[in-house]
């Protein structure tokens, strides 16, 4: 009985705060837009009893999903988001790995301090930090001032309102999410394993590739998911740092909701986004499970 309650608790939580809202979003995505509050039809009218449910059900269709395939803006935005997410995940990994490695190898008394430094940016508002990047990257910003003053460049660099600025913002924002799982994996790594690899004829570098990297695989996967998934749907960073060329699905979603006030199309965009993200994760987990079973 107590166990049942313990198991039920997280499921109730998930059902109330994820499943139910998601079902509502699916329902809206199947509705038609309307000049009303809420801005879609049909709405369920239970006062009419069974007949009300029937008309409500008859009003639902896949029209919005068909619309998404007709206008190339949407799939372009999806592809562009995925591309930006993949590239920024790779950049974050290549910057985060050395940092996590250095932290894990640092003297033990240093590690809490280093960890603190990684988490510290969370203590100020995310929005302020992104605005700060505007001040750094703009044409008259700190970066250009320094580069001009030192004579490294003659004309100011145009970074702000380009995809480069979006990448900088994303990598900066999501770096801690990459570092923390990597650090957790690398910190557990037994130093004797690297010595054993060297003892058996590995150079330092090959010991890293043959031992350190495979043994931090779990951390790499966790870090990549933690960065990739939110970046695909990222809205604030492309809105503040990106320009007209920056096409991301988060921005499209926002515009559908707030500029067009087309809730059904926006909901359809969100449902497809979720499907895009969930399918690879499920496939990946299935594969992991199969591997584990094969090892028996």
């Amino acid at each position, binding site marked *: 009985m107590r166990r049942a309650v313990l198991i039920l608790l997280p499921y109730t939580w998930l059902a109330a705060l994820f499943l139910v809202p998601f079902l509502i979003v699916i329902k809206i995505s199947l509705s038609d837009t309307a000049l009303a509050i809420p801005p879609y039809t049909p709405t369920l009218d239970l006062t009419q009893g069974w007949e009300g449910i029937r008309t409500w059900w008859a009003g639902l269709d896949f029209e919005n999903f068909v619309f998404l395939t007709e206008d190339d803006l949407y799939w372009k935005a999806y592809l562009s988001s995925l591309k930006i997410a993949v590239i920024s995940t790779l950049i974050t990994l290549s910057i985060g790995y050395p940092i996590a490695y250095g932290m894990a190898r640092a003297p033990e008394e240093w590690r809490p301090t280093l960890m603190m430094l990684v988490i510290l940016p969370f203590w100020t508002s995310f929005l302020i930090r992104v605005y700060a990047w505007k001040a750094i990257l703009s044409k008259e910003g700190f970066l250009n001032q320094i580069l001009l003053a030192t004579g490294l460049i003659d004309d100011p660099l145009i970074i702000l309102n380009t995809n480069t600025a979006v990448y900088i913002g994303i990598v900066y924002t999501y770096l801690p999410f990459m570092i923390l799982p990597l650090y957790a994996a690398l910190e557990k790594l*037994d130093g004797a*394993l690297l010595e054993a690899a060297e*003892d058996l*004829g590995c150079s330092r570098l090959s010991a890293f590739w043959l031992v350190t990297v495979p*043994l931090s695989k779990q951390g790499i996967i966790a870090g990549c998911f933690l960065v990739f998934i939110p970046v695909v749907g990222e809205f604030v960073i492309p809105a503040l740092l990106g320009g007209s060329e920056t096409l991301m699905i988060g921005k499209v979603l926002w515009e559908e909701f707030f500029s067009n006030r087309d809730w059904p199309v926006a909901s359809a965009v969100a449902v497809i986004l979720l499907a895009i993200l969930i399918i690879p994760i499920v496939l990946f987990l299935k594969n992991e499970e199969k591997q584990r079973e094969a090892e028996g």
Partner: protein
Amino acid sequence: MADKPRKLPQEVFAPWEDPEAKPLIQFRNVTKRFGEFTAIDDLTLDIYEREFFALLGPSGCGKTTMMRMLAGFEAPTEGQILLDGQNIAPVPPNLRPVNMMFQSYALFPHLSIWDNIAFGLKRDKLPKDKIAARVEEMLRLTRLEKFARRKPHQISGGQRQRVALARSLAKAPKLLLLDEPLGALDRKLREDTQFELMDIQEKTGTTFVIVTHDQEEAMTVASRIAVMNHGKIVQVDTPARIYEAPANAYVADFIGDVNLIEGTATRTGEDRCSVRFAEAADPITAECTADLSDGIAVTYAIRPEKILVTADRPADRANALEGQIIDIGYLGNISTYHVELPGGQMIKAAMTNSTRLDRRDFTWDDRVWLSWRETAGVVLTE
């Protein structure tokens, strides 16, 4: 056929007694410091080919540092280490013909047993069939054929220990280092594995250097033992000589059980002296070296099993002292008696329980005679 050559006695393996023999490893005045701490203090030592050499000492005595210097993970601060006459200081660990079996085994958790053993061979870029043949050979040697496809976490501690051994032997190193190889096994398995180790060492002809704090383990497996303390070697000798002729009270006390009796020595003959340790008790007659001067303070060391416990004074023994039994410890195979001599000196004596469950001859507070021969103990001046 009368002059058929007499069969020579089998040659005893003792290259350290042969002045012609060339040592495989030479430590020459090696000192290793970590900051202020001196781990190894001006140490000189020769280890010969095919030896099973044990470095024995309490934790922090520097034995692991010596092993890590041989493997290449630490460099000596001063002095030289020679392998086959070559200074190995500039050679990195991955290029040394030395392999190590780690205390934690350090098996690669993401690789199968087969791949763990093949790891070193693959680094040498050997052809595939050669690698496979060598791995199979190692699996047979360590009786692991059935587990080749498993991962390290899917086998028992004893099997893991054998994988670690197979992996470190796979490259046929000139020298194999074993860092507390049996420390993680339970007692019974440890004893079996000790004999297995000796067997494998003999079969492969590899020189083994083992680090251990377990004196029984060192005594069982080693051809020679170096007893270490505070970064220095206190004594290097065969297990029998370490036990029966310890160089000083530290070695005598570290190896096995011993009674250490402090007294003053007086010469009584060419190689005999007497050790007086209490006003109330007769002095002990003992064998001693010729250069012992009269009246110096000595420690007399005698092992409990050399002492006979009897009810009456035996006539044929040079040393006989009367005392009172304070404590009796029954260990199954032997019983130990703690006997107090006049003057308060406590002596431990061990008697073998050669018959089953017979009535015990002695009990608490009995007065008994302890007796031993002149040659049973040693006089130590350090």
